[in-house]
């Protein structure tokens, strides 16, 4: 297994190179310039724009910029952000932890809720509860994430005032709180955005889990297990559930990039200081170093997600181990 993981890591380096190259040229081909002044202001000095371009090396031909860029990222240096005037790594350092925390919380809500509901439904196939939960999961799955987020904000933030509406912390009190207090403050701020992302994902996960488990429950080995006199709970949770996990693990591998893209809207609705907002801002301001750096980091997270899924496959299904 170790050899397989090492091979995947080598492949991921190639993926990184392709992503870095494609992003570099795509963003340079896109219309617009990072230093074009606002067309809404009259102070429009071409000399200053030219000087700013010189300061950041944008006056050089694209291939020279590309070589310099590859040299930089090979040493772990993503350059200086055009719009924030500081190293891109510092920019990432500030936002990536928030994105990871949100993604982990959302994945937990997504899979714990979704799998529980899916298993519950599949053991009561055709009942009223099954129909009701199917309807709810379908509605959740098709609800626009920003609308769902806004509704949660209006209900729990503005009307009931149970939970904060925005941010990852309360800037008024956070720094005067003790460590447990700071942790509690972070949890309170995490609940609504994580619930928004997680519950919408749970709608899909529940439907996947239900159909996967129903398929497995119809197989011969389940009949054998029942014939052996095992309790139904043991049949479902020990024998059938494990065999239905393969499709859920695939879904897990795919959900990480989906969470990152979905987080853009959630981060906007909840003013969450994460990668999604950073990337949208960077794209609109043509902040080349941040865009290319973010693409590499996003690709890394996707590769990590797929690698995790692969490892989980090997645990869940012994056949994948012997196939190596």
């Amino acid at each position, binding site marked *: 297994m170790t050899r397989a993981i090492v091979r995947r890591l080598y492949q991921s380096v190639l993926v990184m190179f392709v992503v870095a190259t494609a992003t570099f040229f795509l963003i340079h081909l896109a219309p617009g310039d990072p230093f074009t002044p606002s067309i809404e202001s*009259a102070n429009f000095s071409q000399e200053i724009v030219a*000087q700013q371009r010189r300061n950041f090396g944008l006056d050089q031909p694209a291939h020279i910029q590309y070589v310099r860029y590859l040299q930089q990222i090979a040493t772990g240096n993503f350059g200086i952000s055009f719009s924030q005037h500081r190293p891109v790594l510092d*920019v990432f350092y500030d936002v990536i932890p928030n994105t990871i925390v949100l993604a982990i919380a959302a994945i937990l809500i997504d899979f714990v809720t979704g799998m529980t509901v899916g298993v519950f439904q599949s053991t009561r196939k055709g009942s009223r509860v099954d129909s009701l939960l199917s309807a709810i999961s379908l509605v959740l799955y098709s609800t626009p994430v920003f609308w769902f987020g*806004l509704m949660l904000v209006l209900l729990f933030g503005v009307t009931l005032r149970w939970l904060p509406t925005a941010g990852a912390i309360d800037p008024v*009190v956070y720094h*005067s709180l003790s460590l447990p207090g700071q942790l509690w403050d972070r949890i309170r701020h995490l609940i609504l955005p994580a619930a928004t992302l997680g519950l919408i994902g749970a709608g899909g996960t529940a439907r996947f889990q239900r159909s996967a488990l129903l398929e497995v429950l119809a197989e011969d080995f389940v009949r054998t297990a029942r014939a052996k006199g095992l309790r139904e709970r043991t049949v479902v949770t020990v024998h059938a559930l494990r065999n239905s996990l393969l499709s859920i693990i695939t879904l897990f591998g795919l959900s990480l990039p989906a969470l990152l893209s979905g987080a853009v809207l959630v981060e906007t*609705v909840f*003013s969450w200081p994460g990668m999604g907002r950073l990337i949208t801002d960077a794209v*609109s301001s043509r902040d080349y170093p941040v865009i290319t750096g973010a693409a590499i980091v996003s690709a890394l997270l996707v590769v990590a997600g797929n690698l995790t899924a692969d490892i989980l496959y090997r645990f869940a299904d012994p056949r994948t181990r012997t196939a190596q």
Partner: protein
Amino acid sequence: MTKGLLTTVLCAFVAASCSTKADCRGDFCGTIVIAIGGEPETLFPPASQTTAADAVADLIFLKLADIGPGMNSVGDEGFLPRLAESWEWEDSVTLVFNLNQLARWHDGAPVRAEDVEFTFAVYTDTLVASPKASVLERISSVTPRNNGQVEFKFRLPYPEQFYDATHYMRILPRHVLDTIPRVSLTSHPITRAPVGSGPYRLVRWRASEAIELVADSNFFLGRPGLARVIFRVTRDTESALAQVLAGEADVLEQLVTGVNVDRISTAPHLRTIEYPSSSYLYLQFNMRNPEDPEAPHPLFRNRMIRRALAMAVDQQELIDAVLGGLGDRTIGPVSKMLSIWNDQIPSLSYDTTRALELLNGLGWTDTDGDGYLDRSGRRLEFELVIPASSRSRRQAAVVIQDQLRRVGVNMVVAELELNTLISRVTSGRFDVFFGSRTQDPSPSTIREAWSSSGIGGANFGGYSSSEFDRLINSAIESQQADSAMTLWHRAVAHINADAPAVWLYSPNTVAAVHRRIEGVTIRPDQWTATLWTWRIPESRMIARDRRGAP
């Protein structure tokens, strides 16, 4: 057992979250949270380009003098002393400022004349590439003298010398920045941990989240009324609105739409404050052919077509439909903030009958009965380019499209991604551009946007009129305030008659402010400029005003 443990842990968290480290008393304790629409890109004033950066920087840094509430940019009348306690003119090109001897940097060092000299050098250094460098070109030198005096020399005398000397430069601490190479000054860590001389100093900056300022209780112009000011980065207006409605934020500077104003009006803890806007919106005609910039535009080279289109647009209907009535009909390229604003200046009024007569007179008639005017087999139509990111402009474009359809003109709306739009507009590849322009207090910025000297720069449509150029240059150079005002009004009337654009509206800005805050005044060009005089009386303070106060 497990349930009990969980309850204990939860209670510990809740109790811990209620703990405070300070309990401030008195009239200078208030803490306000401001939902700010963008994050400053830097707190190094020479490099700042956004209103968010200027809003925060204005509390940390000071200028030599500030423009007064009358927004007069001519001469030095009405300007308020800041780092300079007084000034005198030695001759028409020599201005000497006397620095306030009590002024201190946040690290305790006194503010010196050398700091002013250093500031000018940084702003005008090509390595720094400050966007403000071009507006300082008419200052030839800044030289320190003895006894806290600093001398400004100008290349020539003109009415806005004082404004140029004071408005654009926030004075920087030489002793902190002098050792940093100029080329790396804008990206140096010190630019995110600035040392200023203003009423507030930076405590912490949580990137993408919040910026916390604390009052300098020894501020030489008087103790700031609020102990803490926290800017919370909130790019989405809905999110910002939710924060003020939920009581998490105290100030939202722009409510943007009438619907939002109505929502705020229903909240008992909030009030709204309306103040003039520094921007105006317009439809700019391209005078040049988008396919061949050397040739005139096939439609808009004709002044009568431009006038007819201007008369076909009902500005009031737009203001009601898009802004919920929160705006004023624009009188030329002038925002309501400018001192030259006067709604008596002649302009083309809404008159669809006259518009249709003009178009018919040019041979544009509806020959095929399809509801659109045509001539020689060609329909009267053009493309309007707008930024897809602007919801209000998208709404307004639909209303204008309908208004023009009523006189038989087909306007096709193209919603473009902002960078694509900028690329097309700056290269002249458009018929009509739906623009918005934000102005400085000085009306002289009209010259860059609409006179011949702005062609190739901010005059995207390429409008050129020698009479308008003459009037505007005379107004800018006039030493007499009254005659300058007359010249400005004549210039605006002239451009209105020429109709290089359809002037639409100047939106009124409406802010939401928590009712416990007193003394709220807002300067239209820089809404945080007077924030240090706001206060919260002790009797009205809420928990936020005491918790965590320094």
